[in-house]
């Protein structure tokens, strides 16, 4: 029973942490973007204020069943995927379900939120939503290929599909997978540019041309719930990348308070530095068109991914 209680406590703690970290990173990015543009910028906690305001709207309009379900679906998908991501390597405080999920399952589940968004946006009947959804799905077809190739390279190289085992390998050998298979790492890194949807790959939202795309008919509490789901998803992607390529965080042999806090600190540093890569790339690039974005992903990232798979097969 105590074990179950600890697991539930860990799950709640994980969700709160993912939400807070995701929202704060978003706020920091807004502040940094403002500084780059020679502006003063909003406070770092601006995203929390936005969320509070959206949730305190008095009236909300929904457009049918999937319109109601889309934000719920997104947040369910986000929390479900979060449970299968190892937060700290082998830590007893955040056990969640990380031993039972593998990479193939994660690949499937990570699309689930976008699917809910696509169905909900489709039911609103707004033409901007429909264009945004088709763009989003096209872009997903673009970046999923190098991403999957990178993951397949790792799976072949280490003969496992478990995120936990991949992190453990890096902990034991002391070599990060970013160096053990640099081509797979580069392919995954370039795929992450599309995953985070900053410029030049912000073709889905595109406020100036699509009126924020799929979410254009969602306001108030619906938009707020979607924002929370997005924040959790950002944390998920960053944590997954850190555990796959940057040696993860946390010491599997020591689950004391100090070691856990140190692990969380290392995780935050690594995820933040990783998050800065798509953000930096976005600051200096204007928006691509849809076909340019897909051509980008099917060019060098896919080639690097194939080289990564060959590397894993021949130089294992």
């Amino acid at each position, binding site marked *: 029973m105590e074990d179950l209680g600890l697991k539930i406590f860990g799950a709640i703690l994980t969700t709160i942490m993912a939400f807070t970290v995701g929202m704060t990173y978003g706020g920091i990015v807004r502040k940094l973007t403002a500084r780059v*543009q020679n502006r003063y910028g909003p406070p770092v906690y601006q995203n929390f204020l*936005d969320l509070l*305001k959206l949730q*305190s709207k008095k*009236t909300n*309009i929904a457009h049918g069943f999937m319109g109601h379900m889309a934000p719920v679906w997104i947040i369910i998908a986000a929390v479900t995927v979060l449970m299968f991501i190892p937060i700290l390597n082998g830590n007893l405080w955040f056990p969640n379900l990380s031993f039972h999920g593998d990479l193939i399952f994660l690949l499937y589940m990570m699309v689930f939120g976008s699917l809910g968004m696509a169905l909900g946006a489709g039911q609103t009947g707004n033409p901007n939503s429909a264009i945004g959804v088709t763009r989003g799905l096209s872009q997903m077809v673009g970046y999923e290929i190098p991403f999957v190739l990178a993951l397949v390279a790792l799976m072949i190289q280490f003969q496992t599909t478990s995120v936990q085992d991949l992190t453990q390998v890096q902990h034991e050998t002391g070599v990060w997978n970013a160096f053990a298979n640099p081509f797979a790492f580069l392919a995954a890194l370039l795929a992450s540019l599309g995953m985070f949807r900053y410029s030049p790959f912000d073709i889905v939202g595109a406020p100036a041309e699509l009126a924020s795309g799929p979410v254009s008919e969602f*306001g108030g509490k619906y938009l707020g719930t979607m924002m929370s789901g997005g924040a959790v998803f950002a944390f998920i992607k960053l944590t997954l990348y850190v555990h796959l390529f940057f040696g993860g965080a946390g010491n599997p042999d020591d689950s004391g308070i100090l070691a856990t806090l140190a692990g969380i600190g290392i995780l935050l540093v690594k995820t933040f530095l990783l998050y800065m890569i798509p953000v930096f790339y976005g600051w200096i690039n204007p928006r691509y068109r849809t076909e340019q974005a897909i051509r980008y992903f099917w060019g060098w990232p896919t080639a690097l991914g194939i080289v990564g798979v060959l590397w894993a097969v021949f130089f294992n």
Partner: protein
Amino acid sequence: MENDKNSQKIVDYIGNFARKHSLFVLAYGTGCGAIEIPATMTSRYDAERFGIRGAATPRQADVLLITGYLSTKTLKRVIRVYEQMQEPKYVIGFGSCTVNGGMYYDSYNTINGLDQYIPVDVYINGCMPRPEAVISGFVKLQELIMAGKANNGEKYRENLEHYRSNQKKIIKNWKMPDYNW
């Protein structure tokens, strides 16, 4: 928002604080005033430090910023946009044209006085108002929100017949639904 006893509870204060510091603006660029909006939002005057940012659609917006004159043709669109916004919502009339018609006061196809057609929280006068004036207008709106006195949507719903009859005087071929949810 004030409750029926004309007072605010703690939860109202928290809600108003968030609303005050997070204003999503739908800039309805009908007239020449729209040229002041980029200057207000970009690096020189930086409205984002007050939590003011642009919203792309009426569903997500809190503030409807009417920049300049409204012709009889654009009034129809403004009403549709305004009614699609979710409460609590606020309206800022920007420039002399929204106050009394401005330089178009005797034109045959513009309206004089925006508040005959939709309720207005704050007017910013001037032709054109500079970005400082725009920001001071937003600060005034923030004060009204914090005091719970910016109840634009409520006012519109209560006096819908009055506003609707005024709107129908201008828009002769009314082919819209009774209320544009």
